[in-house]
């Protein structure tokens, strides 16, 4: 069963860390280790960091016309900052991996079962 691990946090904190090379180095080292652990356990299916919401573009199609606007779909206090896709037997295992995510300290991780995919549609 595939689950998406969605990482939410205040992106202002990410920005602050960007100005502190030592903190940033530590953070990426933790994520690298996390990724390696998931790969070693054979559960990792994909994942990525997302650039800040200031770089986001929201797209809608209205009357056949593509309308874009600058910014994320919704302004929220915490933003989606990255994700992983993992393949584990059940929710308990997915929660265990979510809890090991370095961003779980101070941020929130949403765990969502994956439905149909382009390959299974």
């Amino acid at each position, binding site marked *: 069963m595939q689950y998406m691990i969605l990482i939410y946090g205040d992106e202002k904190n990410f920005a602050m860390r960007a100005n502190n090379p030592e903190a940033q180095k530590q953070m990426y080292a933790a994520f690298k280790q996390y990724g390696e652990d998931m790969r070693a356990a054979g559960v990792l299916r994909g994942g990525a960091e997302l650039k800040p919401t200031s770089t986001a573009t929201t797209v809608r199609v209205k009357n056949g016309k593509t309308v874009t606007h600058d910014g994320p779909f919704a302004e929220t206090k915490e933003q989606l900052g990255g994700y992983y896709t993992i393949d584990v037997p059940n929710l308990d295992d997915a929660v265990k991996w979510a809890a090991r995510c370095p961003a779980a300290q101070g941020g929130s991780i949403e765990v969502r*079962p994956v439905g149909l995919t382009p390959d299974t549609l």
Partner: protein
Amino acid sequence: MPTLVIDSICRSEGARVLAGLIRRFGDFDLAEDALQDAFAKAIEVWPTQGLPTVPAAWLTTVAQRRVLDLLRRRQSGPFYTDEPPDIAAPEWDAGDSQPADQSGVEDDRLRLLFTCCHPALAQPAQIALSLRTLCGLSTREIARAFLEPEATTAQRLVRVKRKILEARIPYEVPNREILPERLQVVLSVVYLVFNEGYAATDTPGLLRPDLCAEAVRLGRLVVELMPQEPEARGLLALMLLQDSRRDTRVGSDGAIVPLEEQDRARWNRDAIVDGLVQLDAALAIRQRGPYQLQAAIAALHAKSARAEDTDWQQISALYIGLLREQPSAVVELNAAVAHAMAEGLESGLDWINQLTEREELSSYYLLPAAKADLLRRLGRYSDAREAYCAAIVLVQNPAERKYLEKRLATCRD
């Protein structure tokens, strides 16, 4: 055989059968539908053919056939009809023999318990699903118990079952490493059901199912399935001891009767004995916890023939222990009251006055009520009146308000 007897057998065996069906077929709805049909079949044939030796095995056999039948219908597409199922009752021998995999039957109910109380489910959903599957309450009965529209409960049950299925919440007993925290969730669900039932006794005249009895049933099931867990026994003891006082809690005028004025002769002796036995068994495991401590406090009250015989010294010590295990402002308030009774009203009052700063208690009516009670005992009636009035502003429950108003009226200089 009267239908009532069949109903009660179905109810007592239902959870066992249902739990096994869910494990085999992995689908709550399918299992529930099949079990309902098996009950209907039992009502049809048991009166003429007699009770099978092992009703659970009989029901399992019938329900399993029904599941296969339902699955076949689902596969054959849109020709589904609502016509009553025509399922054959098992041969009498088949019903009498044990189901093929009798081993693990107890584990099935345990699996069901932990799945219903999975921490990824919302608390009202945990409660509703436990009452539905483990206690066999109908959706209507659950709705009535929680004073909500039946559609709301039905929707809650649909959603929770969908989440279990789609998020793949495992149908298993948690491993040793996470068992303690998961057991805490199970016990808290059981105690919430009990407290809901206890509060409901204050509002007579409403036809609510007896949630206290259901909670005790659930508590017994947990103890039966996990006899080595002292806190499970502690909770069962606590519920039994509290429940023993149920009939004396509210007076004929509809006001709460405080512990010291309750008619102790009317306390339920059987429940007290049962509770004390459970508590002793829990304490023998020598691994204390909050439910055992609360049960021990309730036991000291239960053992005092008269209010003035109450061993407040010990109760006060137990509250200090509870405060260490479960530090919260509410527990501290109880500790302060016990301290007042054991060590002197003035010093208890000092402690309570310190608690008025605590934000968690800012709208908790029992804080000014406790203060008022101590002031009244000290004969400081004008201060007591002020505190009673503060409590009356905050209290929600009509029976508790009535009690406070009665007390207020007695505080005259």
